[in-house]
């Protein structure tokens, strides 16, 4: 029997990530504005375009880091759902199929190849959305591994669009529990 995973309770929920994003964005915008107490020292010899460009670069980076956080949170949701289905011995088809995987791979089941594949198999009506999630994890893979290659993902990813995707997926997970 695979060893049970102790859940840390430290996983971020979407509203935590949203608060972090909003506060960081407000703080950056304030820091790059005339209202900042450091403005004159920090931006000496800058022209207005340079300040705007630097702010935009910081906001773009914040967007990517927050996108990474959203996708990590979504992975945690799928993995916790998998562990709960396996440990609580639920009788539905998805839970039974997950337990078969669990017997072999335990908590080390692959998110994309095992867990999400089972979702697609058992709920073909959501196949297109699970595929979107799998592609989004390719984007996270790109972020996590240093972004040194040109990704060909076919989609534009940003905080807002990933938030909407994660939000609807969380609802789906909850409704099918």
């Amino acid at each position, binding site marked *: 029997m695979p060893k049970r995973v102790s859940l840390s309770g430290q996983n971020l929920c*979407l*509203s935590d990530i*949203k608060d972090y994003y909003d506060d960081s964005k407000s703080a950056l*915008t304030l820091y790059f*504005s005339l209202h900042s107490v450091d403005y004159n020292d920090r931006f000496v010899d800058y022209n207005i375009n340079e300040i705007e460009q630097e702010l935009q670069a910081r906001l773009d980076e914040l967007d990517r880091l927050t996108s990474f956080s959203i996708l990590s949170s979504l992975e945690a949701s799928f993995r916790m759902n998998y562990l709960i289905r396996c440990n609580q011995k639920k009788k539905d088809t998805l839970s039974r199929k997950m337990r078969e995987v669990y017997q072999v791979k335990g908590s080390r089941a692959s998110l994309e190849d095992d867990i999400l594949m089972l979702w697609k198999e058992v709920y073909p*009506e*959501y196949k*297109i*959305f699970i595929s*979107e999630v799998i*592609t*989004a994890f390719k*984007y996270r893979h790109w972020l996590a591994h240093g972004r040194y290659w040109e990704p*060909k*993902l*076919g*989609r*534009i*990813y*940003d905080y*807002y*669009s*990933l*938030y*909407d*995707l994660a*939000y*609807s*997926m969380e*609802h*789906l997970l909850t409704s099918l529990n």
Partner: protein
Amino acid sequence: MAIKQYLKQFEEFLEQEVKQDDSSVIDYEQEKKEWLARIDEFYALIQKFIGDYLKQGKIIQEWKIIQLQEDYFGEYEVQQLMLKIGKKRLIFKPIGRFLIGFNRGRIDLSSDIGTVRFVLLPEELESPQVIDFNNSNAKWCWKIATSPPKVSYLELTEQSFFEALIEVVNA
């Protein structure tokens, strides 16, 4: 003569790849034309809403051509609209046609204070949901997406537009 096993395998592989290659069934040039037409339609709507203020000189507009880059379209040009209201500057910027999720494109309105998203969505969709509208007869239109945490998609009307405008100039 029976087909060789390795050729049979290769032909199966070819068949599968052709099936999976979206580009063989989607006309991206046509998609791009439709997306650009949707952007024009959006700006026409905005002009209708703010037309009187433009005539009175209370709002000044500036157009700028910007480059977007998307995997299926390559590099292409779109119009960005900047509105000057007193000292405040508001920018409408098309973000792209192929965003992750359930939409067919997005234009953001940003200021120093915040961002409002205009998203091309099925008319009946009121919040992010896992419903596939691609093969339905849904009518696609521009909607306003409210900010997280509780995202709703509102009909784009004169009222919802001006409420969004106030949100980004005077939050």
